């Protein structure tokens, strides 16, 4: 069984500086590489303390690549809708070369309305842009010269440079959170998945993962070759009490900045994001729980 690290910045500047956060991530990466951890993941988010210290995962992963020898580097995720996919294909191929074939290319649709507003991308188009982006990137990675006539991008006779190290191309991972369609789509295409069970319920997580494995198998991909990463907070200490006390403050900060980032969901409805309003409600409920707990001086039990 493999274990990886997920650098998802969720601090405020009164907690630490951005430079301190990156420096800690680099030191942790060096040690994780020695200890046998399998992967390091970073995210693409903007404008909020929830993830916003990492608008481009490729930059931090490149620094990590230079300090490590064997650990896999996973973009968790890059967002084709907010990038030109031709440029993104080349940047990811650079990282695959810098790391000598250690890139896991993870793609996401994004889900924070503010990010779509700023980049003037419609949330209703996010799935179509995501699917077209991945299609363009895999073709540029695998074909010598590509001409493409898509809904959002068209180009003629392009030879991508540099070429990726991994053949036929770096493994592709899909960020799948709450949309069953994403799980099935990923399985059908033979892509691996990155799930976020946080704020979901166990029966739903089990059901979504099972629909992924079923879609994978039904499409004829070799059973058991599918891979799943599950994003989890982790806090370990020698004693139970020390762990509970240590976990409390940072996880409350995490929930606080998450709730802030998804607050722009208020009043949003999108049939492209079925399940997300439930997720946002669950986050809001956690912050309400926290306020309630603080007022009653009760212990952490979320």
């Amino acid at each position, binding site marked *: 069984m493999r274990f990886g690290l997920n650098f998802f910045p969720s601090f405020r500047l009164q907690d630490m500086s951005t430079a301190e956060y990156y420096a800690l991530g680099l030191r942790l990466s060096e040690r994780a590489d020695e200890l046998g951890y399998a992967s390091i993941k970073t995210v693409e988010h903007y404008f909020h303390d929830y993830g916003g210290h990492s608008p481009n995962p490729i930059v931090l992963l490149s620094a990590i690549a230079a300090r490590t020898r064997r650990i896999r580097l996973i973009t968790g995720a890059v967002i084709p809708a907010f990038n030109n996919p031709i440029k993104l294909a080349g940047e990811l191929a650079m990282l695959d070369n810098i790391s000598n074939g250690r890139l896991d290319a993870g793609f996401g649709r994004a889900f924070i309305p503010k990010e779509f507003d700023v980049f003037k991308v419609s949330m209703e188009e996010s799935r179509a842009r995501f699917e077209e982006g991945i299609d363009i990137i895999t073709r540029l990675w695998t074909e010598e010269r590509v001409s493409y006539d898509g809904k959002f991008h068209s180009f003629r006779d392009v030879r991508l440079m540099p070429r990726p190290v991994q053949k036929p191309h770096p493994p592709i991972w899909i960020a799948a959170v709450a949309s069953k369609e994403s799980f099935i789509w990923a399985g059908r295409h033979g892509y691996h998945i990155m799930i976020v069970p946080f704020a979901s319920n166990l029966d739903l997580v089990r059901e979504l993962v099972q629909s992924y494995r079923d879609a994978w198998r039904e499409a004829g991909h070799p059973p058991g070759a599918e891979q799943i990463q*599950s994003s989890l907070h982790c806090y370990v200490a020698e004693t139970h009490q020390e762990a509970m006390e240590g976990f409390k403050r940072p996880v409350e900060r995490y929930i606080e900045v998450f709730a802030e980032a998804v607050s722009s969901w208020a009043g949003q409805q999108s049939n492209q994001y079925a399940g997300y309003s439930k997720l946002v409600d669950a986050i809001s409920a956690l912050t309400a729980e926290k306020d309630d707990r603080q007022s009653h001086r009760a212990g952490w039990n979320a």
Partner: protein
Amino acid sequence: MIDSHTALVGTPEEVIEQVQFNRDLIGEHEPSMQINFGGIKDREAFRTLELFAARVMPHFQTPVASEPQPKNSNITAKRSKSTKL
């Protein structure tokens, strides 16, 4: 979050049980762990990193089949087992 198994928190022995619970639920997977969230600094992040590597990872060296346990497997029994530890 701890009770709902979306966080791995506790002593190494408790965390082993939590990882196993998730493995029984969804089958073979790779936990992608946030150990430096919410402003956690060096001492605590490295403590988690080292304790997990030294005392949790060795328990999961043997590969198992990728399939999760059948639906309606006894989650409650596993949960009560984990609270004993």
